C-alpha cells in the first residue's frame, strides 16, 4: 500500500481506490458510483479528502468559530439596542451600539437635507433603483430605456431641487448621503457615455490626428489617479472658466468624475468595437453606407450589446469610486457616515457606522455584479453547447 501510494500523486480517495482496484489491489474498496453516498461521504470527500485537507479544514473551523463567536457577541448578544443617548452604550463597551445607528441613520442616508423634506430624496432613490432594475430587462435596451431615464431623471431632479409645484428649493450644498452617491454614479455614467463613444471611435479611426488626440486623452486620464482629477476639478475648474462664472461644487466634482468615467468607458466600448467581425464593416461598406450610417446602424448596435456586461462592472467601479469625493468635501454616503462618527456626543462608534456603510455599498455592488454575471452567461448561451 505504502509503496504504491508514493507513485500516485494527489488524487481524491475515490480516484485512488479506483486506480488501485484496476491495478488488482485486493484491499481497494471503491464506493458505488453516482451522486449518492450521503452527507458523511460528502464531508469526507470535500472536507477531509487528505491529511492536508483535514488540517486546513480544522484550522479554518477553529478560526471561523472564534471570529464568528466574537462577532455574534459584539453585534447581537452583547449589543445595545435601545436608549436615545450614548450613556447606555458607554456602559456596555463590549457590544455594538445599534442605538447610534438608530439615531443617526437618517443623517447618514440623507446628510444635511432638510429633515422635513427627506421624503423627497427617499422617493428619488426608489425611482432610481426601480429604473436601474427596469434597465436590467433586455426588452428595455432600446429607445424605451432612454425615454424612461429622461422622464425619471427629470422627476428626480424636480424632487431633489424643488422650487416648483410648491416644493421648497433645496440647494445642492444641502444635499447629502446616498442620493448624492446615486446622482454622481448615474449622471457620471450618463454624461460620460456619449463622450466615451466618440473617444472609442476616434481611437479606432484611420485619421492620425484624431486618433492621437483620443489616445492622448484616454491614456492621460487612465494614467493618473481619480483623486488628482477631482482635486483638479474642484480647485482648477473655477480658474478655467471666464471671470465671474461660478460653478456649483457638486457639478465640479461631477465634471471631474465624468472625464474619468469617459476614459474608462471608452476602453470598454473599444473592446466591443474590436470584437465585431471585420465582415460587418466590409458589408456595411459594400452597401454603400457612409461612415456615420455605418457606425449608427451596423457597428454601434452590435458593439454596445457586446459590452453591456463589462459596462455593468465598470459601473460598479464608478459606484465605489464616488466615495472618493469625500476628499474634496462633497457630502456623499461615506462623508455623511464619517461626519456622524465625528459627532462629539457620540464619539467612539465608528465600527457600527462603517459596518452600516459597508452593508449599504455591498447591497448595491453585489446585486449589480450578480446581474452582470447572469447577463454574461445568458448572452453566451448561443456559443455554448
Amino acid at each position, binding site marked *: 500500500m505504502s509503496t504504491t501510494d508514493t*507513485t500516485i*500523486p*494527489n*488524487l*481524491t480517495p475515490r480516484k485512488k481506490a479506483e486506480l488501485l482496484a484496476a491495478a488488482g489491489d485486493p484491499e481497494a474498496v471503491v464506493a458505488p458510483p453516482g451522486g449518492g453516498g450521503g452527507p458523511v461521504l460528502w464531508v469526507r470527500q*470535500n*472536507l477531509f*479528502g487528505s491529511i492536508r*485537507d483535514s488540517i*486546513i*479544514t480544522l484550522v*479554518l*473551523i477553529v478560526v*471561523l468559530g472564534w471570529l464568528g463567536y466574537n462577532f455574534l457577541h459584539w453585534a447581537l448578544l452583547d449589543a445595545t439596542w435601545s436608549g436615545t443617548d450614548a450613556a447606555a452604550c458607554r456602559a456596555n463597551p463590549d457590544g455594538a451600539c445599534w442605538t447610534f445607528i438608530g439615531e443617526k441613520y437618517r443623517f447618514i442616508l440623507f446628510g444635511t437635507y432638510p429633515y422635513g423634506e427627506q421624503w423627497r430624496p427617499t422617493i428619488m432613490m426608489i425611482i432610481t433603483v426601480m429604473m436601474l432594475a427596469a434597465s436590467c430587462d433586455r426588452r428595455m435596451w432600446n429607445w424605451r430605456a432612454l425615454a424612461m431615464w429622461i422622464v425619471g431623471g427629470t422627476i428626480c431632479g424636480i424632487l431633489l431641487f424643488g422650487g416648483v409645484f410648491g416644493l421648497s428649493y433645496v440647494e445642492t450644498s444641502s444635499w447629502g448621503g446616498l442620493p448624492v452617491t446615486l446622482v454622481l454614479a448615474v449622471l457620471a455614467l450618463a454624461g460620460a457615455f456619449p463622450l466615451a463613444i466618440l473617444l472609442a471611435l476616434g481611437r479606432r479611426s*484611420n*485619421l*492620425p*490626428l*484624431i486618433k492621437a*488626440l483620443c489616445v492622448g486623452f484616454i491614456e*492621460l486620464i*487612465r*494614467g*493618473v*489617479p*481619480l*483623486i*488628482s482629477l477631482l*482635486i*483638479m476639478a474642484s*480647485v*482648477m475648474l*473655477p*480658474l*478655467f*472658466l*471666464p*471671470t465671474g462664472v461660478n460653478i456649483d461644487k457638486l457639478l465640479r466634482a461631477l465634471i471631474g468624475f465624468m472625464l474619468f468615467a469617459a476614459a474608462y468607458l471608452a476602453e470598454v466600448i473599444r473592446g466591443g468595437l474590436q470584437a465585431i467581425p471585420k465582415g460587418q464593416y466590409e458589408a456595411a461598406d459594400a452597401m454603400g453606407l457612409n461612415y456615420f450610417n455605418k457606425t449608427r446602424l451596423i457597428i454601434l448596435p452590435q458593439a454596445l450589446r457586446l459590452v453591456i456586461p463589462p459596462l455593468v462592472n465598470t459601473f*460598479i467601479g464608478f459606484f*465605489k*469610486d464616488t*466615495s*472618493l469625493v*469625500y*476628499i474634496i468635501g462633497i457630502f456623499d454616503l*461615506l462623508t455623511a457616515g*464619517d461626519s456622524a462618527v465625528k459627532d462629539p456626543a457620540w464619539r467612539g462608534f*465608528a*465600527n457600527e457606522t*462603517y459596518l452600516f*456603510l*459597508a452593508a449599504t*455599498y*455591498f447591497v448595491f*455592488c*453585489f446585486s449589480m*455584479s450578480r446581474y452582470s454575471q447572469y447577463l454574461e452567461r445568458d448572452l453566451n448561451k448561443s456559443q455554448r453547447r
Partner: protein
Amino acid sequence: MAMQSTSGVPRPAAAKAVFWRDPNIRAIFYQVLVVAIVGGFVWWLVSNTLENMERQRIASGFGFLGTESGFDIGDTLVHYSPADTYARAIWVGILNTLRVALLGIVLSTILGTLIGIGRLSRNWLLAKICTVYVEAIRNVPLLLQLFVWLSLFRFYLPDKANAVDIIGIKISKKGLQFPVPVENPAYQWVGIAVLVGIVAAFAVSHWARRRQAATGKQFPTVWAGLGLMLGLPLLVFLAAGAPLQWNIPTLGRFGFSGGGEVLPEMTALLLGLTIYTAAFIAEIVRAGILAVNKGQSEAAAALGLRSGTAMRLIILPQALRVIIPPMTSQYLNITKNSSLAIAIGYPDIVAILNTTMNQTGQAVESTVLIMACYLTVSLTISVFMNWYNKRIALVER
C-alpha cells in the same frame, strides 16, 4: 446603377470628382476641423486661466520648488525637516508613494495568488471562504476599508504606555516600533556579501538548469541559493566579529524614540490596498488557471508529477500568459489607489502636493506635478510589464 464586374475592366483613371468627395481631402478637412475645435477650446481655457490668475494675483512658474516648505512630514524615508525645500518634500512624497505601491504589489500578488488557488481547492470550506472573501472585499469601496482598518487599530490596539512587546517589537496605537541595529562599518561588507550571494545563486540556478537539460540530473537549487544568499553574509558578519548592538525604541514623554517605526496610517494603507487588490488578483489568477486546458493537468498527473510540482511547472507558466495583462492593470491600480493616503493622513505625493497647493496657492503647477509623477510611474510599470509579457508570451511560428 448597373452592376458590373470590376475584374479585367481597368478602373476609370481617377475621374475628376468634385474635390469635397475626395476621401483624402475629406480626411484632412475633418482632422483640421477637430484639431481646431479642440485647440480653440484649450486656448479658451488657458486664456481664462491666465486672466483669472492675474486678477487673483496667483504666482505662476515652478520657482516655489526652491523655497522653504515649512511643514513637517510624519513618515519619511530620507532625511527631511521643515527647513527643507518644497522640492525635497515632494521627493519624500514620491518615495512614500513608491514604498507603499511596491510593498502593496508584492503582498497583494502573494495573497491574491493564494486566494485564487484557494477558490479552486477541493476543500469545500476553503473554497467557500475564499469566495466570500472575494465577494465581500470587491463590493465595498477601498476608502471605506481604509477607514475601517484605521478605526480597528484605534479601537483594539493598546495605548502606547501598554504597548504589546514581542521580542522588542512594540505594537500600540502609535504604530509598530521595532529595534534596529546600530550602524557599523562591517554592515557595508555584509551588504556586499548579500549582493554577491544573489549573483552566485543566479549562476548556480543557471548551471543547474543547463546540467539538468543535458544530463537529467537534478540539483537542489532552492536550498543552494538560499544558502548562498543567507550563508555568505552570515560568514562575513561572523568574520567581522559579529558587531551587533540594538537601538531599542523607548517610550518617552512624547512617544517613542529610537529604533525604526511603521506608523498606523502606513499600516492601514498597506493593509487596505493589499487586501482590496488581492481580491481582484485572486479572480485574475483563478480565471488564468481555469483557462489552462484540463488535459494539461491530466498529462502532468500521468507523468507522475505531484500536484504542487504540476502547478509550478505546468499550470502556472501557461496561466501566466492569460494572467499578466490584467495583472498589469491591477498593479497600476495599486499605484493610483495609493493616492487615497491623503484621506487617512499618510504623506504620499498627493497629500504633500495638496499641502503645497494650500500653502502656495499654485494649484495649476501642483496638479501638473501630481499628474506628471503618476504618469511617469504608470508608464514605467506598463513598460516593464509589457516587456515581461513579451518574454513569457507563447512563441509561435
